[in-house]
Structure formats: structure tokens, C-alpha cells
């Protein structure tokens, strides 16, 4: 079995782990409470601990204040396209690096790994000017294009394919006259499916939660949901409950996905940590 796991946890272990879990979840729960109470109620000597049905009225008020629905739709579009593009392009490049021989492949792979550390933030000003010049500033494409394929994704897929697809299988197919594209579609993709799923989940979360670049290149008229939160925080909401209700409304979709796929996402992050 796993190291350490022969040993059961003591009672203290459970207590500490439970406290950590509560600290992790409580702010999210308390957001529902804050979203259902007026400032006066929150300022009371004993703040409320339970939500009320006022929550729904406050969501409605938040929707009037910030373009949250538009933001949600845009975020779904952005995250879906980025995920589809990243998984497809990174798997393809990962296959080439793992299983094909071509001149300069070592150098190109080193370049790919070396640049995982160059943050996008470094180049926002020319990037913005580039997007403005090609007429994409304010468009979702400006958010989608730069993250359509990531160095991390290429490296992650390369590591997985190198280990999961036996060289003999590729050789046999090659000798039998299958083209690289054929090998990719009928040998590599089926074998790499688990890693593709992991990459898809991680990419979707990252794209959904991306903040820095979208807030620069998008306007509040055409925001992703993260950008639309800013209209809530800077808008003149009279009650914090409205801000909280709006924030929760925009966060619930990803929390629902997380509740359903949480186990797989946990597995994916742990797999990515060992492989990446």
C-alpha cells in the first residue's frame, strides 16, 4: 500500500483536518448568509448564521446592477473553446515530442519547457496593442487566442504519451504503412484519453477563473464573469448583500461542476503534480 497509509489517523488528525475543511468551505457558505441580510442585520451584535429567502431578491438586484448573465455566457464560450483548443493542440504537439523523430525536437522541447516560466503578464502592453491593431480588443477572441495552447499542456501530454503508448505499437503501425496522423487518431488519442481529461479539467478551471488579461482587454459591456464581478464591486451597490448575491450567482456554476467532478479534479491535480 501507500507510504504512511498503513497508519490510521489519530483523533487529533481528524480534528485538524476537519478544521481545515471548515475554513475552506465556511467563507463560501457565509457568502450565502451575507447575501441574504442587510447591512444593518450584519452589523448586529450577533451576526446571523443562516441564510434567508431575501437571497433571491438580492440576486435579482445584482443582475440589474452587473451584466452577470452575459458574463456567464461569455465565460462558458471562452472556457469551452480554450479547453477544446488546448487539449487538441497540446496532445498533437505532445505526440510529436514523445513519439516522432524530427530534427531539432530536443531544442524545441527545451524551449517549450523553458518558457513555462515566462508569464503572460510580462507582455500585456504589446499584446494589447497587437489585439487593438487586429481589431480584437474587447472581443472574446482576444482572451481565447493567447491561451489556446500552453507550454504546460504540451509538456504534460508529452510525458503521459511517452509512458502510456509503447514504442513498439507506434513502430508496428509505422511499418504497416499507417501515416503519423492515422497513428495519432487510432493509437495515441485512445491511449491518452485519461490525461486529456485531466488537462481539460485543469484548463477549464484556469480559463474560467482567469482575471488579469480579460480585465485589460475586455470591457464591462462584453465581460467574462470574472470581469463582470468588477462592475459589482465598483458599482454603487447600496447593500453588501447585493454584491454577495451577485458574486455567488457567478460562482455557483463552477462550484456545481466541482461538486460533481471534484474527485476527478483532485485526482487530476495530483497526477499532474507527479507527471509535470
Amino acid at each position, binding site marked *: 500500500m*501507500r*507510504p504512511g497509509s498503513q497508519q490510521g489517523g489519530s483523533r487529533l488528525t481528524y480534528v485538524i483536518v476537519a478544521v*481545515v475543511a471548515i475554513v475552506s468551505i465556511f467563507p463560501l457558505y457565509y457568502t450565502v448568509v451575507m447575501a441574504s441580510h442587510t447591512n444593518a442585520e450584519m452589523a448586529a451584535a450577533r451576526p446571523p448564521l443562516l441564510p434567508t429567502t431575501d437571497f433571491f431578491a438580492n440576486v435579482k438586484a445584482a443582475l440589474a446592477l452587473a451584466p452577470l448573465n452575459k458574463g456567464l455566457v461569455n465565460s462558458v464560450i471562452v472556457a469551452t473553446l480554450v479547453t477544446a483548443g488546448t487539449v487538441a*493542440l497540446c496532445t498533437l*504537439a505532445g505526440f510529436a515530442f514523445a513519439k516522432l*523523430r524530427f530534427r531539432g525536437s530536443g531544442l524545441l522541447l527545451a524551449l517549450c519547457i523553458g518558457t513555462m516560466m515566462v508569464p503572460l503578464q510580462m507582455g*500585456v502592453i504589446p499584446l494589447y496593442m497587437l489585439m487593438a491593431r487586429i481589431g480584437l480588443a474587447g472581443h472574446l477572441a482576444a482572451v481565447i487566442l493567447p491561451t489556446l495552447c500552453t507550454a504546460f499542456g504540451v509538456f504534460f501530454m508529452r510525458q503521459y504519451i511517452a509512458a502510456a503508448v509503447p514504442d513498439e505499437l507506434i513502430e508496428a503501425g509505422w511499418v504497416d504503412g499507417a501515416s503519423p496522423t492515422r497513428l495519432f487518431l487510432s493509437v495515441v488519442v485512445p491511449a491518452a484519453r485519461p490525461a486529456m481529461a485531466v488537462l481539460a479539467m485543469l484548463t477549464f478551471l484556469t480559463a474560467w477563473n482567469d482575471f488579469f488579461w480579460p480585465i485589460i482587454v475586455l470591457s464591462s459591456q462584453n465581460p467574462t464573469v470574472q470581469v463582470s464581478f468588477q462592475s459589482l464591486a465598483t458599482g454603487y451597490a447600496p447593500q453588501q448583500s447585493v454584491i454577495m448575491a451577485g*458574486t455567488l450567482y457567478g460562482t455557483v456554476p463552477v462550484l456545481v461542476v466541482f461538486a460533481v467532478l471534484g474527485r476527478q479534479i483532485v485526482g487530476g491535480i495530483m497526477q499532474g503534480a507527479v507527471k509535470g
Partner: protein
Amino acid sequence: MTTISPPTRAQRSHRLPGSRIAYAYVAPFFAVFLAFSIYPWLDTAWVSLHEVRLSTYDQSTWLGLGNYVNLFSNPFFWNAFRNTVTIGVISTVPQLCMALGIAHLLNYRLRGRTFFRVAILMPYATSLAAATVIFLELFDSKLGLVNWALHLVHLPAVDWQGSRWPAQIAVSTIVTWRWTGYNALIYLAGMQSIDTELYDAALVDGANRWQQFRHVTLPGLRPTILFTIVVSTIGAAQLFGEPLLYHNGMPDGGTQGQYQTLGLLMYQQGWTNDRLGLASATAWTVFLVIVVAVLVNTTLARRRDRQGTLSSLAPKVRL
């Protein structure tokens, strides 16, 4: 799951397809990468040597190192630099230590382990925008739960917005809340790839739990720990969203700039003050700071390695 080491050139079969089409497969990645990472990154260096405005982007005036001279003689820069360092330390050091402890506990055979793992990852799923808006309310001087709790234990209320250290602690809390669970899972994965036999050997030698953690787990985790330190350092150097939204979307980092980071300063210079050259100089300075910080971290880790605490390839139990 075991660690996969990349096959060396010698191990690679020579009968694998050698094909030109491979270039087509890697082309999309390099196209995206050249257009949207490398080009902007290099162009930022060029812009940083010029006086540039948004409206007249193409008619820039050569300044040489003028922007850098200007930057380094600017008290706002040094304020932002200091804040970036202090917030970076407050937000990453406790975070990684806690993550290590949590991972160690989660590595025991626990009932409900899946629940705990998903629970500690919930903050990671919450976007930084949502998390900041939520914590802004929790830290509110009048309505916030934090000051209420302080009152409960007869402590005076704290101005989490206006005073420097409380504000920096509040911003760091948001970062810590979001990333501790994620890093704990990374550590847990690292712990589970440590060879079981090392623990058996330690048990035979009569090591208690703390000694096992100190002499088996920690050395085995060294590469993972280094990885998280590097990633956290890069993140901390670029901290932007949390302090921006903590002051309702304004890039000044509080009325006195008490939590303005270099990321915010760059945004303010570029987008509020329309001084793109100066903002680019800040960007390159941040990049150089990152490079230096990462080099220092890795060198320190290597030096400790040489002392023999760990060789990750052939770990030994040392009691």
C-alpha cells in the same frame, strides 16, 4: 502512479517514425507562443526604452534607460517593491508550511478522505475575483465577521483596509485561502510517490512519526517543495487581482498605497497614467526580480543538496 522520467536519446527507438509532419504538429503551439508570448515579451523590452502613449503608440521617442532611471528614483516604485516582497512572504511562507502539514495528515489512512480532499480544494475552484469580494466583506471594519470575532474575544477592532500591515495581512489571507489546499494536494501526490520501503526501514529503526516525517518525507519531497516555491514566487511577484479588487478595482493599492504591488503599479502607470514606456520598464524589472528570486531559491536548494541532506535519485534514510 509513479514518476515518469523522460526517455533519454539513447533509449529512444530508431525505428520510430522520422517525419516532417511532426513540424506541423508542433507548429500551432509555437505559433501561439511566438505571437502571444515571445513577441509581446521582447517588444515590452523595446517599449521600455521609449516614451510611449496609448494614442500615439507607433510614434515613440527614444529614451534609452530613461524610464528605468525614472522608475528607480521613484518612491512609488520602492513602495510597491517593498509591498510585493512583504505580501509575498506573508502569503507564501505560512501557506506552504500549512500545506505541508495538511498533506502529511491527509497521507494517513483517513475515513472520508475524498471528502476532505475535495473540501480543501474548494477555494481553488473559487475565482480570485469572487474570493476577494467575499473576503472584502469578511474583513469589513464595521460589518465584517473578522472584527466581530475579535470583539468576541475582547480584542479591539482592526482597520483591515486603512492600516498597512492589517491590509497586507488581509490581502495575503485571500491568497493563502485560495492556494493552501491546492499545494497540499501537490505535496500529497509527492508523498505518495515516495518509496514505501523507506518507511518500513525507518520503522525497523524505531523512528517515530515525527522522525519519519523529518527524515523520509521531507527529503523525498524536496523536488516538489522546490517546484511549489518557484511557482509561488512567480505568482507573488505578479500579484495583481487580489489587491486591485481589495480596493474596489482601483490600482492605487489603498489610499496610501499601503498594499500597492508592482503588478498594480504597472497597471496604474500604463492604463491610468498612459505612460506605457514606464509601465514596460516596471514589467521588465518584475521579470528580472523573478529570475533573480528563482535563481536564489534553486541555488540555496542545491547548496543544501550538496551537503547531503538529499539526493532525490537515491534517497537514503538518515536517522
